[in-house]
């Protein structure tokens, strides 16, 4: 049977375009956000917000936070054990308790810290897995 390609094209061209659109969408959907960002969205963004701005004087910002500049791997202790004492960030006193997260592994905490230190215009140096482990060892002694 001889195929009349002209007819096939006349009838079928929208299908070709549709396939093209679907292909492009599925390829762009394959881009995975970095591990640090995923962890941030899952564990931190509900309070500190996706844009890192926090909420009023209730929840401190992470974007351009002076506290982050003054600390590095010891941020790990805050992430794991939370914070129960008032702290000052960018001149505002925050005294709302921050819950810790005992389930995050040192590797995950490292990804998180490095995401936070590089996001939203924060241009802070990365910390290493070894540094995070050492920090967690030191604060686990005091937190028991």
């Amino acid at each position, binding site marked *: 049977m001889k195929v009349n390609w*002209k*007819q096939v094209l*006349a*009838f079928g*061209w*929208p299908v070709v*375009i549709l396939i093209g659109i679907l292909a492009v969408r599925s390829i762009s959907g394959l881009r995975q956000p970095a591990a640090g960002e995923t962890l941030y969205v899952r564990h931190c963004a*509900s*309070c500190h*917000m996706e844009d890192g701005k926090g*909420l*009023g*004087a*209730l*929840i401190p910002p992470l974007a351009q936070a002076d506290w982050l500049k003054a600390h590095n791997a010891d941020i790990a202790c805050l992430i794991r054990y939370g914070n129960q004492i008032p702290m000052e960030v960018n001149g*505002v006193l925050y005294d*709302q*308790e921050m*819950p810790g997260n005992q389930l995050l592994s040192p590797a995950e905490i490292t990804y998180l810290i490095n995401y936070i230190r590089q996001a939203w215009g924060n241009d802070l140096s990365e910390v290493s897995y070894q540094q995070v482990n050492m920090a967690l060892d030191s604060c686990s002694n005091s937190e028991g």
Partner: protein
Amino acid sequence: MKEMLRFVFIGWLGLLVWGCSGGGENGPSSEPLPILGNSTLTPEGGEIPHQVDPFQVWDQDSNQVSLASFDGKIFVADFFFTRCPSICPKMSEQMLRLHDTFFEEGQVGLISFSIDPPRDSVPQLRAYTDKLVPASKHSRIETDKWHLVTAEAGHILEIAPSFLVNAVEDEEAQGGYLHDGSFILVDKKRRIRGYYDGTKPDNVDELIVDIKRLLREG
């Protein structure tokens, strides 16, 4: 043959354009908002629409607040608690957005019910409200516009179902309470006209549109 091909071409093109424009989707309409909840049928064959339960609560300035406080107003309600580590910050952020958007609109009120009265005393609510002020576009949070309220233990958990929300004590939940992030839109007759996810800004965009529609209803 050429006529047939042209016909087919136009036919498909039409289909494509219609499909890409979201085919058949309703745009913002001038239809009234629905009335949500189960209505009660009367023996005479009438229907009483669902209404939210009456309540007696105290706000961040120790004012007693009830449905009468919203006479002649529509209002948006949510259920939260100040120590909630999960969905509440986003809900408060969006409630603040409603406070700022409708700051001048006297017919719109807001009420945030604390589901943790044992720990959310009036002073605690006052402190929480004060801490939100830096995030507001105004220099204050107008108590008469947005009441953050507490009550006798159990009262708020009792009235929550009439707002069609879940709020229960749950030891295993974060913070000790299981609740959802719904914002409930209530009209002047105390009927529920809309239900939105207060943790999602685009849902609250819709709520803002619906508040304006409801205000036009009079």
